[in-house]
């Protein structure tokens, strides 16, 4: 009898191994869920986005080259008017311009925090950057609408809405991302690089400019691309200040639009499955692919530029 009990308890799965199994199942299902979500985001957006070209016979060349956006109507050949060029130009313009403005500031702040005054950098700049990240994008949009747009209207003419307003708002929004990643890039430069340079008699600035920055180039590029990816995908703050006119921007202060702004404006006003709706999903698909491209770029750069 007693032998049987011992035998049974030895052959039976122990409590611990049962728990282990349950735990493993939980953690595996959680990660599978994440993968499924990502895959289904791509599948859903892609099927909807491609329908514009397959089901509704939109021309993919028109999409990238024409500037007439009126998906409800058709041209002479029966193809819907889906020229997305104004939005594409708008999105790229605000992204590139804001990155151009933000990069010097991000690098300067990063150098300050890592090379010049780490203590004050940690005490003052670090919390400043964290707060800038924390401010919600609608608040940026609201401040842009009530401060930046009137300022541009009064000093540069036009309505104030446009690429310039979008650039200024996005500049502040991507600054923290670009800065904190540049800080990481500078910190990753080994200390003996600086020591070697200083020992050769270089000044602090010469060390920074000729050694540290050169070594950190891949990391800083990653930081800028991350910032651009954030700028490209930002929706509401831009939508509030850019004017949302589907026209090719004539100058920096004429009303323009971005992919995200037309998406947020239009999705509520179109019926699921209609041409206008599918065309919007094409914009979303483009947005998705761009975000993927930014990701791939970051990967490439960090692989190539890893410090040995």
């Amino acid at each position, binding site marked *: 009898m007693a032998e049987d009990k011992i035998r049974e308890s030895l052959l039976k799965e122990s409590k*611990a*191994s049962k*728990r*282990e199994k349950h*735990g493993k199942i939980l*953690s595996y*299902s*959680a*990660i599978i*869920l*994440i*993968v499924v979500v*990502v895959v289904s*985001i791509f599948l*859903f*957006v892609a099927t909807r986005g491609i329908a514009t070209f397959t089901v509704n016979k939109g021309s993919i060349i028109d999409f990238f080259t024409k500037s007439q956006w009126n998906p409800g109507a058709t041209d002479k050949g029966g193809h819907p008017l889906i020229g997305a060029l104004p939005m594409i130009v708008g999105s790229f313009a605000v992204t590139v311009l804001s990155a151009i403005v933000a990069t010097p*500031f991000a690098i*300067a*702040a990063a150098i300050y*925090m890592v090379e*010049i005054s780490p203590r004050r950098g940690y005490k003052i700049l670090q*919390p*400043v*950057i964290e*707060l*800038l990240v*924390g401010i*919600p*994008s*609608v*608040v940026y*949009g*609201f401040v842009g609408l*009530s401060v930046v747009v009137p300022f541009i209207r009064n000093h540069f003419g036009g309505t104030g809405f446009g690429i310039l307003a979008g650039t200024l708002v996005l500049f*502040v929004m991507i*600054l923290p991302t670009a*800065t904190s990643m540049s800080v990481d890039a500078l910190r990753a430069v080994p200390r003996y690089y600086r020591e070697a340079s200083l020992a050769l008699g270089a*000044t*602090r*600035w*010469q060390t*920074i*400019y000729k050694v540290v920055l050169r070594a950190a180039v891949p990391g800083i590029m990653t930081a800028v691309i*991350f910032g651009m990816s954030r700028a*490209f*995908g*930002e*929706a*509401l703050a831009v939508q*509030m200040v850019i004017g949302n006119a589907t026209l090719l921007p004539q100058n920096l202060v004429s009303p323009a639009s971005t992919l*995200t702004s037309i998406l*947020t404006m239009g*999705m*509520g006003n179109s019926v699921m499955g209609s041409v206008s709706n599918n065309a919007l999903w094409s914009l*979303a698909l483009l*947005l998705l692919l761009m*975000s*993927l491209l*930014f*990701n791939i770029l970051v990967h490439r750069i960090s692989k190539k530029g890893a410090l040995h």
Partner: protein
Amino acid sequence: MNAKRADKIATAVLYVMSGIIVLILALLLFYILFNGVPHISWHFLTAPAESFQKGGGIGVQLFNSFYLLFLSMLISTPISIWAGIYLSEYAKPNRLTNIVRTSIEVLSSLPSVVVGLFGFLVFAVQAGFGFSILSGALALTVFNLPLLTRNVEDSLRSVAFTQREAGLSLGLSRWETVIHVVLPEALPGIITGMILSAGRVFGEAAALIYTAGQSAPALDFTNWNPFYIASPLNPMRPAETLAVHIWKINSEGIIPDATAVSAGASAVLIIAVLLFNILARLIGNKVYKRSTGL
């Protein structure tokens, strides 16, 4: 130019540019708080919003924001902890792990408006939840999962390996070691990360306009039965949040005091985010002190 002089000039430029960043934040905060705080009153915080007249409050929106935050954290916390445990404890360097890491990276860099549209398509339309708190909470979960998971993974990884060895040598299974030994040790870090992401979720709007909706029906704060249509706890009602409200009254609103209401609402949002930040910092500091013995 003399190298020493170049050094001085460059240092001065760096000081000025860093100063400009601090100035930008200071002006931003000053503008929002200076314009917004005078509008904050008990009436403003509790009264329902007006659609055509002035004098409306943000009571319902404020409640919706907190309720949505609570629900989405309720869903995303366990999932992110399980996923984080996989990545830090079970993940072998194989294909599956690679796919998972790439997925998380891609998901974390997706524009929130795309996440919102996906939520609209899947939760609101296909699953039939409509514009509801449930759809919104699920969309926010998708938006929040990658960052939370990474935070859990990092916190778990920072626990010394000897802790795991101790647990295993006592005869605990790997899972039990994680749950009873490693997780409690990593908890402060996880909580800090969760509070920070709560601040992010609290201010998120793009993922919500087509999932939780842009309308805030009046609520009956005396009936807390979640199945009652006007109950504050009903997860199937449309729920405009504070952030969505600011966006809406600025882009298509017709209330005459839109600027005042959005200034007040922005101030409330900023104050909430500040509180989240301070809380996270306090906990972080405490942990730092405890773990370093300083």
